[in-house]
């Protein structure tokens, strides 16, 4: 496994984890833009733009783009989050150059108004689809309430109103600012021909101009609150709590992830044994979600509406039990084994490695092989986890619950 990196004259970074023995290679553009970079008026533009990137370029119609993606036999897709937009393909090594040509061309889309209006309908369908799923509504509301006036409060999909009002002109302006070469990173994993990759990328992006891009950073001002929502067709009650957690750059994040696994992994955790194994709840999990400048520690409960109060009290008791039931060595070992084995198993596919390598490099400017990355978890001590556990007792929290009444 070899890691190589190169910065092109226009500021575009090319990085690769090369495994000459792999059967495939994966390639992706990681764009440092997402819903947190949007103003209220254009909420949802990053995600809508992600759809429009498949709609054709100066050299290709939208039909050409879709056909070529399939011609290359690729497994390809894209996603948008609060902080990044990623476009990726997995192909056989002999298709590296063709895949690069297509993906790079796609980064300079035509954004034709006719396509924009058709795709707007697809986005509105996507919003309607999630509106029908009560847990998703709880998650969006919890993000808004937790982050308040912080940019991370912006919904990734936007709202029906903001998407309806969005113009292709506003999208064009956003694209020009955010898709500058110094805000993109080209990541490749697997059987990569790195020299060819750099050379071909340089040729194809010669005309790209760097721009001044910034992102508003800073921790949110969290105010504890409890919000109830009604979704009449719901049959279950969904409860989601956010409290402060470490961000993506915080060294404590490994400790909190291990604690999250001990308390609330979907199997073998304290929440699992108390609520799920016993048939009291359908789901009871704890997890961490990390951002560039902050993070959240989340708890999610799904259960029958008439059992919500009692179940939530049980969760509260578990989260407040650090003194009487401290974390044990056995729990720590099990959580570490589970996390590390999962990482190593997933790493066998270059398509999975793409996201680990790409995220670590674009957010932390760091490369780690999978075993080095696993070592961070191995280093977590019992005392560190116990200290993090003790702090949960007095956490600030935003709690959102949605159900039929």
């Amino acid at each position: 496994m070899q890691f190589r990196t190169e910065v092109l004259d226009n500021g575009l970074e090319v990085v690769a984890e090369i495994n000459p023995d792999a059967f495939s290679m994966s390639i992706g553009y990681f764009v440092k833009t997402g819903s947190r970079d949007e103003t209220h008026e254009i909420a949802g533009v990053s995600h809508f733009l992600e759809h429009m990137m498949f709609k054709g370029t100066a050299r290709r119609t939208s039909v050409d783009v879709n056909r070529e993606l399939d011609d290359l036999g690729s497994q390809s897709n894209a996603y948008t989050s609060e902080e990044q937009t990623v476009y990726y393909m997995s192909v056989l090594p002999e298709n590296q150059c063709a895949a690069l040509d297509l993906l790079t061309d796609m980064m300079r889309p035509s954004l034709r108004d006719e396509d924009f209006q058709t795709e707007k309908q697809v986005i509105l369908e996507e919003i309607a689809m999630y509106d029908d799923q009560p847990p998703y509504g709880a998650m969006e509301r919890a993000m808004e309430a937790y982050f308040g006036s912080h940019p991370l409060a912006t919904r990734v999909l936007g709202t029906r109103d903001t998407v309806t009002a969005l113009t292709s002109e506003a999208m064009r302006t956003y694209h020009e600012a955010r898709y500058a070469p110094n805000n993109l990173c080209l990541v490749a994993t697997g059987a990569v021909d790195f020299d060819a990759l750099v050379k071909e990328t340089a040729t194809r992006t010669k005309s790209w101009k760097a721009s001044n891009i910034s992102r508003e950073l800073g921790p949110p001002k969290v105010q504890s609150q409890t919000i109830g929502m009604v979704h009449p067709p719901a049959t279950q009650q969904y409860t989601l709590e956010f409290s402060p957690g470490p961000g993506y750059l915080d060294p404590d994040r490994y400790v909190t992830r291990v604690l999250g696994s001990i308390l609330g992994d979907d199997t073998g955790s304290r929440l699992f044994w108390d609520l799920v194994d016993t048939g009291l709840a359908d789901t009871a999990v704890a997890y961490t979600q990390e951002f560039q400048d902050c993070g959240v520690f989340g708890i999610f409960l799904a259960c029958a509406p008439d059992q919500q109060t009692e179940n939530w009290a049980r969760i509260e008791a578990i989260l407040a039990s650090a003194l009487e039931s401290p974390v044990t060595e056995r729990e720590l070992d099990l959580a570490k084994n589970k996390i590390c084995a999962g990482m190593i198993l997933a790493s066998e596919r270059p398509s999975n490695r793409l996201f680990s390598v790409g995220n670590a490099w674009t957010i932390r400017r760091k490369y780690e092989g999978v075993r080095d990355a696993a070592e961070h978890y191995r280093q977590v001590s019992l005392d560190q986890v116990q200290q993090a556990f003790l702090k949960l007792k007095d956490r600030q929290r935003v709690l959102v619950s949605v159900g039929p009444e």
Partner: protein
Amino acid sequence: MQQSFYQHRLANGLIVLGERMPWLESVAFTLMIPGGTCRETTPRAGLAGLSLELSQRGAGPWGSREIVEQLDFLGVERSSTVSTFHTTVSMAAMARVLEPALEVAAAMVLEPHFPEEELEEARQSALLELSSIEDDPAQKCFKELKQLRYGEVFGRSSLGTESGLQAISHQDCVDFHARNCRPQGSVLALAGNFDWEQFVKLAEKLFGGWSGHAAAEPSPVISHRGSTHLSHDSQQTHIALAYDSVPYNHPEYYRGRGIVGVLSDGMSSRLFTEVREKRGLVYAVSASSHSLKNCGSVLCYAGTTSARAQETLNVTVETIRDIRNGIDPDELSRLKSRVRTSLVMEQESSTSRSSQMAYDWVYLGRVPPRQEVLSEIESLTCENLVEHFLKYPPQGWTLVTIGPEPLEFADAISN
């Protein structure tokens, strides 16, 4: 595409399959046992799932909690599922822990404790899972479609029914396991980095003492046509649609699968292009091949806001029927390219390879080598695909919609 494939039959009838992928650090195995929902009775619907759940709450030297801890300690990823014909337990782990992981799986099969005191908890979990599907209309749509299409016995959901789950006794779970969890008709498929000789010895040691035949399967699967609408206060209408096709063990399966590929594989596929790209009617639309023994179907899904649901259904059906007017050579070439790539990439995952091998065995009684699958795909032509479509035209339609308003049947469907 070199492949080192092994197979062995234990004296008790258990089939052991192996494919060595020495470039991986992992192994994965899939154990398929005849214990699916078709062997339940309607008054005890949900028994297969509940019996499986209880068999995992303590087995061999491990108590209920110790099983989970042992697997976590070993770093084993696992899943267990119930389908119409089988109960399946799958595990994936680093190669060095194959033996202890397989010991746990063998204990669940051969020495389950079936703790009576945990039945109520397992039952409550199952009831919650059943009720949670009410909040997921797309999934519920397919549950209803299966029931309507395959009838009482073969259309059962693995989640069971509320009355069925309530009626199941501890003895029912024990009996179901005893009757169905048998080596004859079971298959253990291993893929990844392992030594075959050692693995056969291990399988003999752990499963050699297992014996017996599973109870006979019910009569052949028959698909039923028809339609139903479930009223739901939602923005979107969910459409699940099925029609007759050839099953996995049919000599022309790859032609049928090829047509589904033209319809739904990739972003240039016809359904994606016609329903989403050109008209913007949906976010999600898809078709897939599905087999229940000798009964093959194509299953389709589309979700769209209610005002556009009728148009979505009409365009979907028309797009399917339009295959009769021909397939473009470029479409076929893209299809072949996708299959070639996915066959190569299958070698990167022990998990997908082991489950494919087990599936192949129970359906075909053998595991076709990659080269054979590739030859089947390469032999597809635009002409033989259309010929197949005319020979097996879409008919025997089943339609389920969930949403505010029912939809009109197109003439095509009301056959």
